Structures are given as structure tokens and as C-alpha cells.
């Protein structure tokens, strides 16, 4: 199931919105029910694991709160030994946290990584001639487990750290972890971002409804005109890369990156739009990533919620852990401000990208994808001051528009290669493609015509990408087209709506002969 299904966007979603609005009070109860119903309709009915996650973090948070309360109480006593009490409660809190984390991570590991581990162990056993093989179990992971588990972890860790108050209302925690537009592909929600809005059960405002659907249609446009149309090109190049010239393979990498961006950001348009309808501000997951200066910045503007999650719960806790902090202080005196923290930073960065790769799936291509980005970003950090010096010497203005464009193009080239590794079926294929790009560096125009796309398809894709580019450029200049449009006069808006919808219906890639691409991120 995908959020792009017409039945979801144009039947289920409006019906939920309508009923939600007709209910006089306690709308949040209905919203919770709707979450579970949509979860059911979406196919994979493994609700029980979501419910277990919700229960575990809710009660763990409450227990931590209780421990805190007890501490206060004990400290009030006259002859209280502060140190002992603090230590004792801290230990207790830690135990609760660790148990809760283990419980939640265990599901993730079982559903996503068990087979990867057993395959590898079996290979090892084979190498050592051990006559035993672990059985492969085919488990279908519960919908959205990669996303809601991270949200659940963020909540319980924040409660542990005192950043978020342990929530009393069970409904509120449930709503936070199960909101149906978010459950499948994120963004990975933080409690303070959405929980209050979700729980408030506000009536739908007409303007929010319009803004929401405008946003949804923009995402729908990306999916129908670009993603589903370009998909055959991508799969034919990746499936038979050996028979294509280097430039065609590289074009495949570009096409895949474009497809992935349109698919994922389009889904986020639908998600954010759906939230907007109910007056819930779901944080943006993309901020025009292709305008970034370097790969490091790119990853702060692409899948933002995953990046900040890793930053908050992995990167800083590691790089600012006691031993690494000491190292940083020491090295700073010797190596200066830039290179001083580089080692601690790189160690943490390595862990982040290792986990980032693993999060996307249990496979060596994903690990290679993580390693690639670690090298690109750590390398960029290492070379950074050198570039600054170089440009200074050559008297290049780093804010110059030409320089900025060149920077973004360079950054994009690195990203294309990264996403190529990401999409490749095996590490061997990824390396083979990489080699192919450089060793067979020629181009044959006829190769483009045998991939199931005709000249019309290319025209539609290119024009649509330009359209998205222009909207993004405006956004980058702080002009929100969605917002601007909603403030226009009714008849102008309607003409634009009608034209836009008709355009999607006519030029969309659907119907006989088109296979809609399954959501990419829902599988992670």
C-alpha cells in the first residue's frame, strides 16, 4: 500500500476528515480509531507490535517519572544522604531505560536483520566446514517499524533526560506514535512536534484543508508524472548495466536519484499535506537538498528527521562522551580548532553512517552506502580548510553565484554515485557500475530509445522536473507557492486547480502499461 493510491487520497482521507469534522467533541478518539483502521486497510495487519511499542514506552516513561518523584520525596527528608539517593534513583532510571530500549530494538532486529545475520553466520559455518545451517525465517516486518521505533526511542530517551515530561495520557502517546499519514514513511516524529496538536482535536479549518490538498496534489504530480514514468528507465539500466555505455549508466544513476527524490519528497508532500488538513504541523523532511554546498549539508536537508535523530541520539552522545571529549581537548591544543575535534567527530560520524546504512536495510550495499558517505563527509571535513585557503589564494569569491552553482553540481555528482550504490542489487553490481562509468566512457543515443520510454516520455519528465526545480528555487528564495496560491481569488484558484488536475490525469503515467512504483522508503 502506498499513500499515492487514489483510494487513499481521494476516498479514505476525505472520509476520515469529514467524519472527524462532524464529530462534536473528543475528536482525538476518532483520530486514534482512524489510525488503526487505516493501518488495517493498508494491508499488513501487524498492529500488535505497534501497540506493544506504545505500551512499553508509555509505561517506561511513567516509571521513570515515578522514580523522579520518589527522589524528590526522599530528598525532602531531614537525614537524607543526597549522594546515595541520587545514585540509587539514577541506577533505577537507567535500568528502566535500557530495558525499554532493548525491548523496542529487539523487534527491529528480529524483523529486519535476523535473516541478514543468519545468512552471514551460515556462510561462516560453511567456511569452517561446520555441518549446521540456521533456518531462514521469512518475516514480514510490521508497517512503519523502522520509523515508529525511532520515534519511540526518542520519546523515552527524552523523558529519561528530562527534556520531555512523561505523558500522563495514554491516548496522547498512542496518537503520537500511530498517526496514519506518518506511520508508513515518517518523518520520524518527536513528541513535542506533533503530540499536542494531535491530542487537541481541533476542528478542521477550511484554509488548512485547502493548503493541505494543494500540497498533496503537488506530491501526486511528482509521483504520477515523474516517478512512474522514469521507473522503467531506471530498472532497465540497473538490471542490465553491463550492456550499456558509461554515460548511460551514469544517466541511470542521475535518473534514480531524481526518482528517489521525487518519490520520497512527494510522499512527504502527501504526509505534510495530510497533517495540515487536521491542523497538525508535521515537520518538513526536505529542504531543497540539491541547492546544498557539499555532501555534508545535503544530508542535513534530505530526510531531515533521520539526520537530526542520528545527530541527537548517536552523534553527540558519542563525540561528547567523556573519553572522546578529553581527546578533543588534548588535540585542540596541538592541532588547532579545525583538526582538534576531527578525530572524535569522525569516530562518531563513522558510527552514524554505519547505523544509517544499516537502518536502510540489512545488506552490504547499504553498508557500502554508509561507508561511502562517511568517507565523503569526513574527507570533506579534512579538506575543508585547504579549499578555503585555495579559493582565497585564487581570489575566488565563495558567495559568487557561479561558484555556488559549481559547488552544487559537484555535490550532486557525489550524491548520484552514493544513490547508485544504494540502488544496486549487490556490492559487486555497484562496483561494476562504478567501473563501467569510467572505463566505457562513451554514449550511444540509440540506447535511450530501447528502454521503454519514447520521446514523449522524455519531454514530460524533463518539463516536470523543471517545474519542480522552479518551485524549489522559489522556496529557496523564501517564496512559498503553496501559500501564495491559497491567497488568490477563488475563481483564479479554481482555474489553476482544474488545469493542474487535468494535467496530472492526462500526462500521468498510469493505466495499462504502467506499473506504479512501490513506495521505496516504506520498506526500510
Amino acid at each position, binding site marked *: 500500500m502506498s499513500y499515492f493510491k487514489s483510494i487513499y487520497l481521494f476516498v479514505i482521507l476525505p472520509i476520515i476528515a469529514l467524519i472527524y469534522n462532524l464529530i462534536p467533541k473528543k475528536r482525538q478518539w476518532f483520530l486514534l480509531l482512524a489510525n488503526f483502521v487505516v493501518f488495517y486497510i493498508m494491508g499488513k495487519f501487524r498492529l500488535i507490535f505497534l501497540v506493544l511499542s506504545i505500551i512499553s514506552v508509555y509505561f517506561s516513561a511513567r516509571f521513570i517519572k515515578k522514580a523522579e518523584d520518589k527522589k524528590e520525596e526522599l530528598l525532602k527528608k531531614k537525614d537524607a544522604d543526597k549522594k546515595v539517593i541520587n545514585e540509587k534513583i539514577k541506577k533505577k532510571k537507567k535500568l528502566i531505560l535500557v530495558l525499554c530500549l532493548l525491548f523496542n530494538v529487539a523487534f527491529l532486529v528480529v524483523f529486519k536483520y535476523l535473516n541478514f545475520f543468519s545468512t552471514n553466520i551460515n556462510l561462516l559455518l560453511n567456511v569452517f566446514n561446520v555441518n549446521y545451517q540456521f533456518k531462514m525465517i521469512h518475516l514480514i516486518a510490521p508497517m512503519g517499524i523502522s520509523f515508529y521505533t525511532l520515534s519511540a526511542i526518542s520519546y523515552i530517551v527524552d523523558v529519561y*533526560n528530562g527534556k520531555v515530561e512523561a505523558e500522563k495520557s495514554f491516548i496522547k502517546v498512542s496518537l503520537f506514535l500511530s498517526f496514519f499519514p506518518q506511520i508508513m514513511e515518517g518523518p520520524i516524529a518527536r513528541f513535542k512536534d506533533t503530540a499536542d496538536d494531535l491530542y487537541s482535536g481541533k476542528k478542521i479549518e477550511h484554509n488548512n484543508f485547502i493548503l493541505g490538498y494543494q500540497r498533496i496534489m503537488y506530491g501526486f504530480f511528482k509521483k504520477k508524472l515523474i516517478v512512474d514514468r522514469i521507473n522503467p528507465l531506471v530498472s532497465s539500466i540497473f538490471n542490465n548495466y553491463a550492456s550499456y555505455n558509461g554515460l548511460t549508466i551514469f544517466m541511470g544513476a542521475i535518473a534514480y536519484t531524481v526518482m528517489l527524490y521525487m518519490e520520497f519528497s512527494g510522499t512527504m508532500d502527501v504526509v505534510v499535506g495530510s497533517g495540515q488538513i487536521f491542523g497538525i504541523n508535521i515537520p518538513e523532511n526536505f529542504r531543497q537538498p540539491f541547492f546544498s554546498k557539499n555532501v555534508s549539508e545535503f544530508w542535513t536537508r534530505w530526510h531531515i528527521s533521520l539526520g537530526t535523530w542520528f545527530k541527537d541520539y548517536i552523534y553527540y552522545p558519542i*563525540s*561528547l562522551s567523556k573519553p572522546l571529549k578529553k581527546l578533543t*581537548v588534548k588535540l585542540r591544543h596541538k592541532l588547532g580548532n579545525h583538526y582538534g*575535534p576531527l578525530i572524535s*567527530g569522525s569516530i562518531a560520524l563513522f558510527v552514524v553512517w554505519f547505523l544509517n546504512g544499516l537502518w536502510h536495510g540489512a545488506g552490504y550495499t547499504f553498508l557500502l552506502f554508509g561507508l561511502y558517505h562517511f568517507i565523503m563527509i569526513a574527507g570533506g571535513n579534512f579538506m575543508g580548510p585547504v579549499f578555503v585557503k585555495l579559493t582565497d589564494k585564487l581570489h575566488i569569491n565563495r558567495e559568487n553565484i557561479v561558484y555556488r552553482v559549481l559547488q552544487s553540481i559537484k555535490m550532486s555528482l557525489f550524491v548520484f554515485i552514493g544513490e547508485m550504490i544504494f540502488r544496486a542489487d549487490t556490492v559487486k553490481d555497484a562496483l561494476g557500475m562504478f567501473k563501467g562509468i569510467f572505463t566505457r566512457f562513451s554514449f550511444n543515443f540509440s540506447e535511450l530509445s530501447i528502454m521503454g520510454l519514447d520521446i514523449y516520455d522524455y519531454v514530460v519528465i524533463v518539463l516536470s522536473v523543471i517545474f519542480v526545480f522552479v518551485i524549489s528555487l522559489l522556496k529557496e528564495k523564501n517564496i512559498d507557492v503553496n501559500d501564495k496560491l491559497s491567497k488568490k481569488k477563488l475563481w483564479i484558484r479554481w482555474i489553476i486547480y482544474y488545469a493542474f488536475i487535468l494535467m496530472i490525469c492526462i500526462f500521468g503515467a498510469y493505466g495499462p502499461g504502467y506499473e506504479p512504483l512501490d513506495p521505496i522508503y516504506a520498506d526500510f
Partner: protein
Amino acid sequence: MEKLIEILEDLQPEVDYETNEELIDGRYLDSLTILSLVSEIEDEFDVEIPTVEIIPDNFNSAKKIWALIERLKEE
């Protein structure tokens, strides 16, 4: 406060710390600079900044960083 600005200017001289209010969100300070900054502040002001406090909200301007230091000193 002056000491703090000195530290900041030492780390990243190209920013006007009196006025800038989006040090993190505007990517004026990257994560490596933050690592330096944290260890320097801890050295200089004899406080310990727990990792949970490392959020844009606490680091987006010199004033905010100062407020954080003051708060941690009290604790």
C-alpha cells in the same frame, strides 16, 4: 559574555556574534565546531554541558549560549 565571544571568534571568525541569531540553523557553526566549542566552554567556565542540552535552541546565538552557561553554573 565577552570571554564567550572571544572563544567563538577564535573558532569561527567570519560571523558577527552580537547580532547573529541562527548560528546553528544557518549552518554558521557545524558539528565539529560545536565539539570544540563545548570542550572549550567546559574548560573555561568549569561547567559540564550534558549532550541533551546540545540543541539548536541553546546554541543559535551568543546570548543563548551564555544563558545556557549561566543556567548550568547555577545547577
